């Protein structure tokens, strides 16, 4: 955790220059081998209370015990490897959904199939000084979504729960 492995292995004529992040908690007290997410070089490290007590030492030919959760490349505009890429990064399973995008999810219908105003942009509809009433005239403001809702209703996709 607490630390990074800046891999400088020469690969194809230039330095790998990938930062492998040793995430907190997991690597606070840890010993074993870990691969570079980019060039797959295996390094041995021994971390004690967040300090790199030993390593990183190259261990050619060995299978890594684990992989980083994240790696990026400062000389490549911070292109990165996120969690769960086979052979490069280890998976992060404790997520709220099987995939996360990190950007706003444009939701138009709730899980039970009724319209919810989760997408942008919404057409302007405020009155004086930003005032709003107490209803969402979806049919007038976004008729295409209203249409879609009608179709869902007809197809029996809208439930009570």
């Amino acid at each position, binding site marked *: 955790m607490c630390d990074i492995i800046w891999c400088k292995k020469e690969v194809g004529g230039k330095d790998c220059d990938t930062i492998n992040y040793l995430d*907190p908690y997991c690597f606070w007290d840890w010993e074993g081998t870990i691969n570079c997410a980019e060039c797959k070089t295996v390094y041995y490290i021994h971390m004690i209370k967040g300090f790199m007590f030993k390593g990183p030492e190259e261990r050619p030919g060995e299978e890594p015990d684990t992989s980083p959760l994240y790696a990026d490349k400062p000389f490549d505009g911070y292109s990165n490897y996120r969690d769960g890429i086979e052979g490069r990064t280890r998976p992060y399973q404790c997520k709220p959904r099987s995939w996360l995008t990190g950007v706003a999810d444009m939701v138009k219908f709730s899980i039970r199939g009724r319209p919810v105003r989760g997408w942008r942009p919404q057409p302007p509809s405020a009155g004086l000084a930003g005032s709003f009433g107490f209803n969402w005239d979806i049919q007038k403001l976004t008729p295409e979504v209203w249409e879609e809702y009608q179709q869902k209703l007809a197809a029996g996709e809208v439930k009570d729960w």
Partner: protein
Amino acid sequence: MAEKKDVEINSRADTIGLMDMDVRPYPVTPPPSYEEVKPTYEKRKALEFCDWAEDSFKFEKRYGKDESLGHLRVLDIGLWRLGHKFCASLFGEAGAEVVSVEPPGGDPLRQLTPFGREEYLLENQETGEKCGMEFVCETVNTHCVTLDVETPEGQEIFTQMAKNVDVLIDGMPPGYMDGLGIGYRQLKAANPKMVYIWVGMLGQWGPWKDKQSKFGQWELEPFASCANSWVHNTGLAQDLLPRGKGGDPTRSGVWLADYVAGAQGFLNACAALYWRDELGNDGQMIEVTGAETLMDIIDFDITWYGFNASIKGRSGGWDPNLNQYAWNPCKDGYMMIGGQTDKLWYNIGFCLENDYDMFGRLIHEDPFLKEMGARNALHALIKTYTLTTRWLRDTNRVEAETKLMAYQLAAGPLLYIDEVAEFPHFKYRPWQYVHETDYGPLLIASSPASYQLYAPFRAKWVGRDLGFDNYEIFLKWTGMTQIKVNELMAKGVI
């Protein structure tokens, strides 16, 4: 004045009495003086206002001021749990006359003590009666009487007492009081002004209502926080620590749902009393459960599920909504750093790169991290906290706090209770203080509502012997004199 003593310690029992408040006085170091605090007020050009604030809210002035709910009478009955007790304590702290009814054998909570160690039971200095610390500190300003409500005489007495109460707190199992003929629907006829609050875990009704084991054992926390997803959502991910060794759903160290239910019980009851007194209406029944009151404040987790079927997972010491907003391990414990807005975010970088220049570079150069919302992406959290902890491993909590606060950042060390008790601010405006109780001087937590201009909450007594107030309360509330009390005691009714 400390004196040297020769002490031989062969067992835990030998340590008892060595740390008592009269031997090792509290606090170890005195709180800062006003003169030491004054420059802080002056630096922000708020001296006059802060002086006024100190004068108006000073903790030490609380006993001289009025009480807000001194006109109320509260009756409380329950066992084992803290929910109904915290609710009763709040009424007591606000000045109400609170009476708690226990069976003649006492609330089993009195027997609970950490790791079952009897040497940690508190002893009443006058009577020698022992009581567990948990029960003592959550029995605030409460009179204790005993009554066996499973006897006809007990029910009769209870009914008489309930006739003139404003609030009745019921912490018994669903339908228990009703089955004995002393529940809401039986009592309300004689006292239509009564506000009746049931405080429990999951409910008086419904498929998951409070239950007992085959042998009559009660459901206690954390059943409530396990039933509303709170436990599932708390803890470190199995990806950060191995499952079974820390990467698991985790309960709170305290019986959290009880405290939340107790607070909601109090506030809903006060709203009901307002409707009754100010607006000229009757009493009513209220039901608060640990599971639901805690679910009410579980952020937005269930709403999130309805939005796009997300099921919240554990995020350990981090927060998926704000970055930075977390604690991470440091040289001598854990350090919390907060700073979500751009200004604070960059201040964190400027502070940390003084010692670890890689932080500034890797964080500030990364185009992805420029947008505030984007910093909440999972990989952004991993990157940020890896680098932060790299800095923290070299820094102890005091150093970290000093350095970060110089950049106006919210930063705080994770403190253990001995450190909490000695933290300068918490002594100056007492978070905890020594109260002279019937069990000797005890360090107890002050009520957070003790800092008010007119009617601060306060503790008057903490803990009470079993049935201590039998004579006084039965006399004042039912006209029962001591001969009758003794008679009923002999019969086991009281």
